[in-house]
């Protein structure tokens, strides 16, 4: 068993339309102000970024906003991007910070504990506009299950599952002890197992 999640399926997809060096060329071109090159970068990464941010925010509108802001900010700061590095982790960091800022503003102040203890009911979750972007009933089930996770479990699960962050990174990012990451992730997985048992 003892398996470390390597690159997730998205990573291969990211570069499926071109080699890594193609991405570097696009980045260099964008750094010279070429908007269409940056447009290609947007098209390469937007789905993955969207999925990740949605996993955190559970709101289609907010995710749209954050993804757009992220790309705009990335374009503004593209000159500071060090060529040779992968593009996605960079924009994912920008998006993640923005998403967490928003989450903190929206939720932390409103008795976070209460929100976190809200009951787990994946059936009642409304996917809203995201529903149109999922062509499969099982996919919808999975997204509903993630969305129904209380915030503290959802954020840990999303960072681990969509971003492959290790426990210490999650702990330091969320400012919680590594042991708490462990227990929250375990709890999140238990809840998800329960919600999608029939699909396994």
């Amino acid at each position, binding site marked *: 068993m*003892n398996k470390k999640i390597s690159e997730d*399926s998205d990573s291969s997809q990211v570069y499926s339309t071109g080699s890594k060096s193609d991405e570097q060329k696009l980045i260099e071109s964008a750094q010279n102000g070429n908007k269409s090159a940056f447009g290609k970068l947007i098209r390469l990464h937007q789905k993955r970024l969207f999925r990740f941010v949605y996993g955190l925010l559970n*709101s289609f509108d907010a995710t749209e906003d954050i993804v757009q802001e992220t790309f705009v900010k990335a374009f503004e700061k593209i000159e500071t991007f060090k060529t040779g590095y992968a593009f996605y982790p960079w924009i994912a960091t920008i998006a993640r910070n923005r998403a967490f*800022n928003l989450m903190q503003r929206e939720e932390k102040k409103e008795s976070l504990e209460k929100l976190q203890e809200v009951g787990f009911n994946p059936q009642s979750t409304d996917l809203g506009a995201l529903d149109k972007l*999922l062509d499969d009933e099982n996919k919808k089930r999975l997204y509903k299950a993630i969305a129904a996770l209380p915030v503290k479990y959802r954020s840990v699960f999303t960072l681990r599952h969509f971003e492959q962050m290790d426990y210490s990174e999650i702990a330091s990012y969320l400012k919680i002890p590594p042991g708490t990451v462990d227990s929250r*992730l375990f709890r999140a997985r238990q809840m998800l197992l329960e919600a999608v048992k029939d699909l396994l």
Partner: protein
Amino acid sequence: MEHQFYIDRLSAYFDNELKNEEFVIVKEHIDQCDECQKQLRELEKLENLFSTKTELSENDYWEQSAQKIESALGEQNQTEIIPVAEKASLPWWKLTALAASLVLVVLITLEEKEEDGVFQRENNYNSTIEKKDMREEAPVVIDTTIRDELSVGRVELRTEEETGDLGNVEELIEDEDITFHNQPVEKSKSKPQVSSKPKTVKNDLTKQKSKLVEEKDVIDNYEIGKTISTNKKLAESDMLAETTTLIKVEKNFDQSISAKVGEESPQETSDSEVFELMDLAIDNKSTDKDIDSSVESPKLSFNNFQSIEVVTAVNESDQKSTSKITKINYWRRMLETNNELLKDQNKKVISYSKSNKKRSVKSKKSVQNIDLNFVYKQLFEAHYNIAILTTDSTEEQKSIQFLTKHANSVEKEYNSDALYYLQLYKNKQKQD
């Protein structure tokens, strides 16, 4: 060990996150425990399920979304070409200024419709004054001469007055030494009220229009703080003037357009008095018992201005504050007040979200940003001034850390303002 001990570590074991010793212990247990093995298999299935089934479907949405983002990049480029204030989401003063410009345009348009020297916009003018009076709640005394002129309806009497007003409006934007509304009065009073004939009126109107265009350019290019600082050197006392400029711009704009202040109050407001006024305003704000109800208002950050306006009224009625506070205390209190505002703002956003459950997060966010931009700007300004005024190195360090933190963070929305004040601080240090 308890079975639960191993269950608690299954997730970490699955993710290869256990330390060596712990890993060995847990592995030994799992090899012998059917229940743990079953759990582990389920975790693996779950992982595979979420890896393969959470990919979002191909859809027209993605192309539309990419185009939308690309067009947003275009907008971003435009703002680079035209140096508009970077925080376009801070439009209250700008809107006020533009609204004032529009009022002027309307007045001019009406004036152009005049026939046979009959002044046809008398009603509009009066109604503007009345509105202003109601809004200000300040003892604004309308120049009786002007009222008489209006009642007579002679256009030529107004022409000089308006030209004077426009001149003031322009100065209000460009001049950092803006004082309260009594200055425009002096200016207009200093001009002789010479009657001019309709031909002269047309010339004046042309001038007014060109001034309006200039004024609009100034507004468009007006970058908070920066225009002010580049126009003239920043004396220490003028830092406060800079803070209050936005307020004064709004005030003077309105007043220079629609009202003339009474002749009996042409008292110049010195910097020290401004400090007192601002301090009083803060006192007023911080002791405001209705703050909880104001939290519901989407224009929370305007509370300060309202308070300041009230204080101005107090000043006009010659009630001077006897308290003498230092600049540093002022900025500390400014800091405190804005921190309170931030707290209140958070409450506001939450109550907003409670009462508008159907509204999207997007709309909540946009409401929040309008106020926060200004609050943060004031915070940065306060920190900057504390840093340059304080003798306590810890306090200075703390303020600079606050600015640095916000200036360096890519993800924050307010970093350009923080960067600006940090740069100011560095320049100041070099000068010293």
